[in-house]
């Protein structure tokens, strides 16, 4: 019997889908049977992040409406055989599914998967309610920006009201150079404000753009620092105690600058 985790944020564009795709791939690479659920009905993107967009036959709404069985809608990743995707519908909207239906769907997935990751849409309306309905745990993604942290705070309040007692935080797109200059909030600033446990910090990384272009999650690239951060988060989600990446030394210094000039 597996566990289900919703990846949410409030704010759009902070990296929920990127986080879901990368954590899913990383967990599957560690041997877990993983199902990814795209709960962003009407604006699906998890398929694109994974490069599986051409293999969609059925989607979540088809399953919920009884048009097909769950197994028929699940798409198996060709790179990692224990990773599956349940895509969202693109031509419907959030009202096509109810929280109760999501609860039943995720419960069914938990019977045959070790981990179910649910990619939540942005916002606090029905899309969010659908996404959290089936989840045992929650991961909140934020960036070090005022609006993202504000929205994360609201989301944490809503999660706690729905009995999620220990939501965990991912700080995404941190830029160590800007933090050093005092132009970006640092990890402690954000933790003081949001006051939930930190499960990971992911640096801004050009590899993410490339990985989305290609439909290949960054965790597959050894040279991607963001990929490494995601692999560490996956390990922590499985209970491992992994030290946080030292982003300062990875970014600074003459060597770092030379590498950037010559495209390393």
């Amino acid at each position, binding site marked *: 019997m597996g566990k289900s985790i919703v990846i949410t944020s409030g704010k759009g564009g902070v990296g929920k889908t990127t986080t879901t795709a990368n954590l899913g791939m990383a967990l599957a690479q560690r041997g877990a049977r993983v199902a990814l659920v795209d709960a962003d009905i009407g604006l699906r993107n998890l398929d694109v992040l994974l490069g599986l967009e051409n293999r969609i036959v059925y989607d979540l709404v088809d399953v919920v409406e009884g048009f097909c069985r769950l197994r028929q809608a699940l798409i198996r990743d060709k790179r990692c055989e224990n990773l599956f995707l349940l895509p969202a519908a693109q031509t419907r909207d959030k009202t096509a599914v109810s929280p109760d239906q999501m609860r039943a769907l995720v419960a069914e997935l938990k019977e045959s998967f070790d981990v179910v990751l649910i990619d939540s849409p942005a916002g606090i309306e029905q899309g969010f309610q659908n996404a959290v309905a089936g989840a045992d745990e929650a991961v909140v993604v934020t960036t070090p920006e*005022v609006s993202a*942290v*504000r929205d994360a*705070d609201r989301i944490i309040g809503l999660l706690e009201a729905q009995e999620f007692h220990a939501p965990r935080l991912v700080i995404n797109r941190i830029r160590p150079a800007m933090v050093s200059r*005092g*132009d970006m*909030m*640092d990890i402690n600033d954000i933790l003081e*404000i949001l006051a939930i446990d930190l499960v990971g910090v992911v640096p801004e990384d050009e590899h993410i753009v490339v990985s989305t272009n290609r439909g290949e999650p960054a965790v597959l690239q050894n040279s991607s620092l963001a990929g490494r951060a995601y692999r560490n988060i996956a390990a922590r989600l499985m209970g491992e105690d992994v030290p946080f990446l030292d982003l300062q030394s990875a970014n600074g210094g003459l060597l770092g600058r030379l590498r950037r000039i010559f495209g390393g």
Partner: protein
Amino acid sequence: MFSLLGGLRWRQAGSKDVARERLRVVLMHDRAGANPELLEQVRDALVQSLSPLVDMDRRGIQVDLRRQGQSLALVASIPVRGFKRGAGGRG
């Protein structure tokens, strides 16, 4: 206005400190707004902690969240009938 010294000082302010302060204030407001019972709970907490010391008119107590310049302040108005025996006696 943008002398070298002025420019340096502006830089040293660090926009992240401004961001953090603004967030702190905005969130106090958001959190109070999202939880209307919060002020009630503050009122009850005040009554509980002050009643051994102060004889209050509980129904007249008002608790409010107000802007004070760039920050927020919790302001309470507590009608008092007197102080209780024993209060303030300990050294």
